[in-house]
């Protein structure tokens, strides 16, 4: 009997991704779906896709999903999880979505320790609208709204989401990964699994930041995009575990008034 | 007299540039023009198209109900737009890439192997300019000198070698279609 080494995750529909070739969204979608399959939670999972390139995620994930307005995913996810505490709820957000227009909703969901997970795709640009500056765009990085490169004096500094959110008392688990290498992909998958487990254990807010490639707007090949993540992005946004309360015993969720 | 043309093909084939260069040159000839691109999600799928209207009087609608010309740079473009062309209109096809032919009898079709021709000239990316050579001759909307002059302005400060290839590509397309 042949051993199956590759199969289509059950939590992914058969539809063909609309993402550009080499796009990091495709990779992360697959990882999330594999985790859902492996944890056996397809039937109790509800996802909240953003306005961003992943806006059509409901075409790919075979779980219940409701599209949120730009940046408001964490508010929707908060409410869904509060109404259905035994479900697994995740919002899926880009850097513009989470750290620009939706920073208030994300920040306060984390600060309240809402018991859902955020899958945060950091590709350092606004992908969907055609490559404008994102909050995570790095200094001197060119974008269509920073034609001469991002300047600290007028555009400010790149926002370091994992560093900031890990400082909030409501956050239970925050990790930054990168999908630029096989090892990074494996780490990302583990992190997503841990985030979902954190939620099942009622520990509170979890966030997995993924350094993700956007070959189209970076105007690089997929291979060079991976190099860019490893050599440039990872220096500004170092991967690693920024907060982890999952090892601690006792359910913090119950301890909260 | 108003003449509307749809240019259509893959993103990256320079389809939009074909449209803007026609609009720009017709404007410098003194005509009224509109250039209307398809944008956004329509382009994510990898296709690109635009409509150019040229007229000696004010242009009412930039939307083309029945274009006089359809320029087809890839196969899907032919199927999407061939039925829109006005009876008696013309379709110009990049026959290096497009294998099918129009199913209509009431139009004139020109087959120009522009990708191959551009390759022979040393730059397959000039296929759109080869096509513009054929188009300018067939359509008679702008004189070739005006078109070429406009093209040079658009290309601006870019390399001289490129300008040279463009001129030769244009001439090749222009010669290819007999009037």
């Amino acid at each position: 009997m042949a051993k199956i080494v590759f199969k289509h995750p059950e939590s992914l529909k058969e539809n063909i991704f609309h993402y550009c070739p080499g796009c990091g969204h495709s990779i992360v979608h697959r990882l999330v779906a594999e985790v859902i399959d492996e944890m056996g939670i397809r039937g109790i999972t509800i996802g909240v896709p953003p306005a961003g390139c992943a806006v059509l995620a409901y075409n790919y994930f075979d779980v219940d999903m409701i599209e949120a307005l730009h940046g408001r995913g964490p508010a929707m996810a908060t409410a869904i999880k509060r109404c259905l505490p035994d479900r697994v709820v995740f919002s899926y957000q880009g850097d513009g979505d989470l750290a620009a227009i939706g920073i208030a909703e994300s920040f306060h969901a984390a600060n309240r320790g809402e018991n859902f997970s955020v899958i945060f795709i950091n590709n350092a640009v606004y992908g969907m609208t055609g490559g404008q500056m994102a909050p995570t765009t790095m200094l001197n990085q060119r974008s269509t709204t920073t034609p001469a490169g991002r300047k600290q004096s007028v555009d400010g500094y790149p926002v370091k989401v994992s560093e900031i959110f890990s400082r909030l008392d409501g956050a239970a688990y925050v990790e930054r990964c990168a999908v630029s290498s096989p090892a990074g992909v494996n780490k990302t998958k583990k992190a997503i699994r841990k985030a979902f487990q954190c939620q099942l254990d009622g520990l509170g807010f979890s966030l997995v930041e993924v350094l993700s490639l956007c070959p189209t707007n970076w105007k690089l090949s997929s291979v060079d995009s991976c190099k860019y993540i490893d050599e440039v992005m990872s220096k500004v946004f170092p991967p690693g575990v920024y907060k982890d309360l999952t090892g601690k015993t006792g359910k913090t969720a119950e301890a909260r008034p | 007299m108003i003449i509307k043309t749809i240019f259509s093909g893959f993103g990256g084939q320079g389809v939009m540039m074909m449209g803007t260069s026609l609009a720009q040159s017709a404007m410098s000839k003194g005509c009224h023009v509109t250039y209307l691109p398809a944008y956004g999600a329509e382009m994510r799928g990898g296709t690109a198209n635009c409509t150019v209207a040229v007229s000696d009087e004010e242009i009412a609608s930039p939307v083309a109900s029945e274009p006089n010309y359809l320029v087809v740079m890839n196969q899907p473009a032919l199927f999407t737009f061939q039925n829109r062309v006005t009876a008696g209109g013309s379709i110009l096809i990049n026959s290096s890439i497009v294998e099918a032919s129009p199913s209509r009898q009431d139009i004139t079709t020109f087959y120009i192997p522009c990708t191959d021709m551009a390759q022979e000239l040393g730059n397959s990316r000039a296929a759109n300019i080869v096509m513009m050579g054929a188009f300018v001759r067939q359509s008679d909307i702008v004189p070739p000198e005006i078109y070429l002059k406009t093209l040079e302005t658009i290309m601006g400060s870019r390399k001289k070698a490129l300008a040279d290839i463009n001129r030769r590509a244009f001439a090749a397309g222009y010669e290819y279609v007999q009037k």
Partner: protein
Amino acid sequence: MNKVLMSGNNVIGEAAIRAGCRFYAGYPITPQNELTEYMAEHMRNAEGGIFIQSESEVAAINMIAGASAAGVRVMTSSSGPGISLKQEGISSMAAQELPGIIVNIMRGGPGLGNILPSQGDYFQATRGGGHGDYRTIVFAPGSGQELADLTMDAFDLADKYRTPAMILADGMMGQMMEPVIFKKPKPRQYPEKFMLRGAGGGKSKFIRGLLLDPVDSEAHNWKLARKYEVISENETRFEEHRLDDAKLVIVAYGTAARIAKGAIKRLRSHDMKIGLFRPITLWPFPEMRLRTLSATVKNFLVFEMSTGQMLEDVRLALQGYADIEFHGRPGGAVPTPAELANVIARVYEQKD
């Protein structure tokens, strides 16, 4: 002045900078990204020009309110969802009598909708959009040239009446390229007494929006209302196209009016006596002129890229003095002139 071929989004940006706009804040959204990008590239080169890519549309509108208070000519732009987010700020600018230009390059709605051309934001634009008893001057340009001219005029009127003004166009107007000539802008006339620049040695000023005292509040509302009346009397604009012998008049604005003109051209060649009435200001709506027309024309057809919004203003204007038919294509659908011509011809023949 030379003709230049530019996309509508870029025309608005260029016209604004020429008109002396020196502060722009915006947030990306299709189909107006080219305008934000144009300002990113050119505002920083204009003397004293400030461009900020804000963190949201909410921030953008409040940024222009601040810059306006500081005495600078200001503009922001967006589409659909972003314009909705700006409404609280627009209401506040109307209340605080702060001039500023808001550009809405309409896309299909409701909700995220789509990014195609639409005219579904007519109610939002003309009815105030935000809360409270206020109006916004709304221009609906119908060509690249008008985008240039009306953008400049909008700055002048916003200053003159100390009120926010809106340019209401759609994805097609924003993306389409047409030749334009930029006219010479008028010098700005905006008294320093309305600007907050620090009291210096003189009396300090404040600009407020909260009026807890009902007497003050009512007085302020009446003052605004009188201003809106003056605007209605003096600033209403429209275009009449082939109305002289028309038996049926199409009422349409912006892109829809362009398509209607194409359709009319076709039908006129078949001897059908059809004309176009095109409101250029949607607020104030050219109500009186339309009512006058109903003395001679008895049949109107309203055409919009929506399910029927301006239709209500036409009904109010005609007050039952004429028959009104409607044709609409919502959600990003743009009919061709041929399609519209068929609809118009059917109505025309019924009425004939």
